[in-house]
């Protein structure tokens, strides 16, 4: 299976990656290789094998519903580029 240029651009957009036009053929090859591998796996007969959702054959341990976290806002916000009135600031995402 081979990905064309517009598909590579769409995948880059979904991942919010900016890519150079000249690198597209290379990405196309690499991504296509991954899909080839998926195709090979799909061709294996898995009749009678039950699907798994996780490679470890374990089930989740749950936590009880208790508040265990304290307010560490000041500590976390020291690492943020911009904050105001307790909010994290980001570029405006709507008009």
């Amino acid at each position: 299976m081979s990905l064309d240029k517009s598909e590579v651009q769409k995948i880059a957009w979904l991942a919010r990656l900016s890519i150079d036009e000249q690198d597209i053929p290379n990405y196309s090859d690499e991504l296509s290789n991954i899909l080839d591998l998926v195709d090979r796996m799909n061709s294996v007969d898995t009749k009678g094998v039950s699907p798994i959702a996780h490679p470890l054959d374990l089930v989740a341990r749950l936590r009880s519903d208790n508040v265990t976290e304290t307010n560490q806002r000041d500590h976390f916000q020291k690492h943020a580029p911009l904050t105001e009135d307790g909010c994290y600031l980001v570029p405006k995402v709507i008009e």
Partner: protein
Amino acid sequence: MEWETVIGLEIHTQLATESKIFSGAATAYGAEPNVQACAVDLGLPGVLPVINEQAIQMAIKFGLAIEAEIPERSIFARKNYFYPDLPKGYQISQFELPIVSKGHIDIQLEDGSSKTIGVTRAHLEEDAGKSMHEGFGKLTGIDLNRAGTPLLEIVSEPDMRNAKEAVAYMKKIHSIVRYLEISDGNMQEGSFRCDANVSVRPKGQDEFGTRTELKNINSFRFVEQAINYEIERQIDVLEEGSEIVQETRLYDPNKNETRSMRSKEEANDYRYFPDPDLLPVQIEQSLIDEIKSHLPELPDAKKQRFIESFKLSDDDATLLTSQKEIADFFEACVDAAGGETKLSANWITGELTANLNKENMDITDSPVTAEMLGSMIKRIQDNTISGKIAKQVFEAMWNGEGDADSIIENKGLKQVTDTSAIEKLVDDVIANSPDQVKQYQESPPEKQGKLIGYFVGQVMKQSQGKANPKQVNELLKQKLNS
């Protein structure tokens, strides 16, 4: 052409846990920005989600209430999209193997008949944070307190055929989650909100028409208005010979219209895949049995019981069981009233509801408690006060002047049932109204019933409303007809 509407709803209800679905941060509403957003909620590197068992149990509770299958295994998936109030770049949700599979509820239609609406599935997911686009100049402020709050998304089958059915369904789900005490259902605070999928098709056609999705509607009234607007719009488009574009639309309650969100934003490709950070959840049959054995009485069952054991009308029973708090109030009132059900129902659906609506109050905040109302009704029953005087007593109780007995005592509202005292008033009124007596006595019997009202009114006025109306009537008839 005749058109048929098809509606399906996705309801997001916030689960009433203390802590978040994957972290130990608090979920309380109204805290200062970001004081309840811990490292997990912020999506900092190296953190791992751990599932809150209470959220799982609440979801199972809901599933059992709608008679759904609870699969033995449930898995969480990542739903990938970028938005600043979703710090990880994905929302942990469920795709395959949701916690609740197919179930159903019954809704009541306006003509009194009922209709079963299928629930496709209900799955657990985390809420996102809140973006504030005002007040930060050219920037957007992000508050992540809500990020990671547990949500149960309840997805219906496309079984509804008009806006009223959709509202009835939404109200029923609202009532169920509140009865189960798994959500406060507070719509102003966003704890209960809904997306509506709406399409129309020529009547008789099997395939569905192209649908649009109306996002984030947070009141019953708006759901009805938004759907009705959208039905009209779609029919107009189709009758013009154009086609419906499958898209997400926003409802604007101020203008009462829906409008398209920009297509770029809704070119969604969520690329769901199982979250490798979370192992599958195993649901033991013993847990399901345990939860089942503690399910409370649900609205439909309670309504049936109210009709059967309290002899209430369907309308009264529907009203009184619409909220668990109202039903509880009613039962406590009946208890205090010594088993009097009809008067209790009347006072709650009438006077009390009117007062609560006027003050925009919940029944749980009523200054007149169920016990107070019940004790007052007891006094109507034992003829201490008349129904008319009771309105005065009720107002006084509402205004915090004490309980019924002390108000009756202090204001001297006790009904006069002493026959000789009433007789004296009756005699006075008859003596002072020769013209009316003459008119009454010359009228045919079928007109006398109406004319007697004048005398009753006069006697009641003389007694300041305290004479027993039944006795007044009887005495007047006796004397005027003799």
